[in-house]
């Protein structure tokens, strides 16, 4: 179980103190919605370790993550944009999900397999800058597969996509979450993303999360 407990934070110079409480289950998508500026990205930054909370705990199956630096947390990120290094090929980007000094043969095999899983076989040599928005998000998801970290944080990952593509990628996220048993946390202000995908829904208002 992913358990965020009394996670408190104040942006310097801002009056509001955030206090986050929520739980997520393995293989489930937890959705966070709320007005623009309500603090959704702030919450994800705290979980990912990019911001330091004043107090509180982030527990994954009993182990506290809050003391780990971002790179050591069992977490993958998928942002609205900027998830890839644009100058590297799709394959190179995906391979960054593997430990350094992985054998070439294994890299190729795993990259192929991951691309197959996200339905994008054959683009590994294409430079990321030339991929479409939907393809980029799939490549980023493929990297997430190789990293295979149990927590997946999604910050408006579908916003830049057209309706049809967003449907496909959304379904893909659902499928992968279930099959890999991830704790997926989805930030979105689109009602239909939340309805289609989430098993558990929170609304963020005045610095507090409310189940609805």
């Amino acid at each position, binding site marked *: 179980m992913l358990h965020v407990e009394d996670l408190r934070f104040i942006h310097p110079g801002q009056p509001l103190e955030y206090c986050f409480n929520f739980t997520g289950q393995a293989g489930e998508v937890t959705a966070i919605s709320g007005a623009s500026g309500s603090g959704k*990205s702030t919450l994800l930054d705290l979980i*990912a370790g990019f*911001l330091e909370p004043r107090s509180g705990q982030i527990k994954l199956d009993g182990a506290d993550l809050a003391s780990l*630096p*971002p*790179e050591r947390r069992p977490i993958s990120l998928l942002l609205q944009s900027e998830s890839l*290094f644009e100058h*590297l090929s799709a394959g190179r980007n995906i391979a960054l999900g593997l430990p350094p000094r992985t054998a070439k043969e294994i890299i190729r095999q795993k990259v192929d397999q991951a691309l197959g899983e996200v339905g994008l076989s054959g683009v590994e040599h294409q430079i990321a800058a030339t991929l479409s928005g939907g393809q980029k998000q799939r490549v980023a998801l493929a990297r997430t597969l190789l990293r295979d970290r149990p927590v997946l944080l999604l910050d408006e990952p579908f916003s830049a996509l057209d309706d049809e593509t967003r449907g496909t990628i959304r379904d893909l996220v659902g499928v992968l979450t279930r099959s890999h048993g991830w704790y997926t946390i989805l930030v979105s202000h689109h009602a239909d993303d939340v309805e289609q995908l989430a098993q558990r829904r929170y609304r963020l208002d005045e610095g507090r999360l409310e189940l609805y």
Partner: protein
Amino acid sequence: MGGAGESHDIMAGRMLTLPHRPFRIAAAVALAVAITVLIALVLWAILAAATEASGTSRVDIPHLLRMTSIQAGLTTILSLAVGTALAWSLNRLRFPGRDLLVGLFASAIVTPGMVVAFGLLAIWGRNGWINQASNALFGVSIGNPAFGLSGILFAHVVLDAAFAARILLARLDAIPTNRLKTGQSLALTAWQRFALIDWPALRGSIPGIGAIIFLLAFTSFPIVLLLGGGPANQTLEVAIYAAVRQDFDLSGAVRLAATQIAVCSVVILIASALAPVPTSFGASASPLWRDSTAARMLQSLVLAIATLGFVAPLLSVLIDGFGSIGRVLAQPTFWWATVTSLAVGSASALLTLVLALALAMGRGATGNKPLRTLLGMPAFAYLAVPAVVLSLGFFLLVRSLGAAPAQAAPFVVIVANSLLALPFAIATLGPPLEAITRGRGKLMRSLGLSGWRQFRLVELPLIGRDLGVMLALAFCFSLGDLGVIALFGTQDLQTLPLMMFRAMGSYRNNDAGAIAAILLIGTVLAFAGLPKLFGKIADAAR
């Protein structure tokens, strides 16, 4: 807005989006401290000599200060105005050869001052092309506008306006396409477009560029030495050189150096407060938005005049120089000077590369404000302590250590030249490295990339060309240097610029012209070739 990590990340280390790179930071701190100590030693040597030597001296510091300030102020204003107009024109007009022209203006910053001064004399001088033509056609002479204050300003503006234009053009080219689309759909006039779209993009860079130009003009050495025509138009630099090498007035030189350092430090303090925020790099797609016909005619005119003013002197150097190149090539001293110049240039370029890369990477790796300030300082050190002053300091230092200046000369020339290139090298490498760690820090950190992978996969491919540009800058700077070598040069240690200067001093103007042509060609080759080469290397690293 993608979360909190984008702009507020320097705040008191609260944002943890910077990858953890203790080794980079430690290396940068060590180098910054080493450079600071070196500069401090040099300053100490100068000040110690100043208190010691209290003999009478005839240097008129207030007069020099006034003249130099007027000259540098005028240079700055004129260069910024011309540079802005030129960048504006280049940004709008599309024509065959545009890239070549932009490249040419970019090379202004490395074109040796001596070469430009020589070219101006060849065109505007007493026996220059224009006087010859005017004498032949109308039987009147136009005098010698290439001499004195007008000549100095002319030469400075030729170089510095092109330098400013290149930077400002990059700002204009980076204006987001969507902003241009919006402006075009609102049917802005050419003037509105400049005021509402261009100027806001340029404004942030103007004070920083202005400060650099002011310092360059204030400390200008070869141009003033060649075109100044005596004490009336000296800079402090030239006065120091004259005091040391001509009048043997060491106490005067030291007082001048102290003044020079004080003034430059004040300008730098002001400038660093005004330093432009590094914007993201990369150009947006070129728009199909043409200004009105009148505006386009003005742009073409600006471009034509600027091109003529910049290209004509250099062309004249090449044409005149090749006439007498045979005589020079036959001299063994020429070949020695060439070898010396190439060796000094390469060594100081490599040293600059190491220093700039280490300092810029260390600075990019930390969000700690005092530390960032410390790591930014070496970039300014040399501007505060320019070529001739640094040489003087080294000279005094070496002497007080009991070593012979001639033995220390090669070392001093290499170190001094690479410190001279350092501000420009850091200005070239710093912003892109910074943009990478700021923009991609979250991603790199969450992927747990090691420092080496960060360099190999992300930084090297993205800054490869900049590395080439930086090496070319450093190489060309020391290839064209006269300020350091003029004080430290000996019969054994003679570079091409020093040989050229000596040739002019003994009225062998044809020899000087031939060397000027060779220097110009070497500069252009290095400046055009190195970035291409490194671009290729970087592509291979992808």
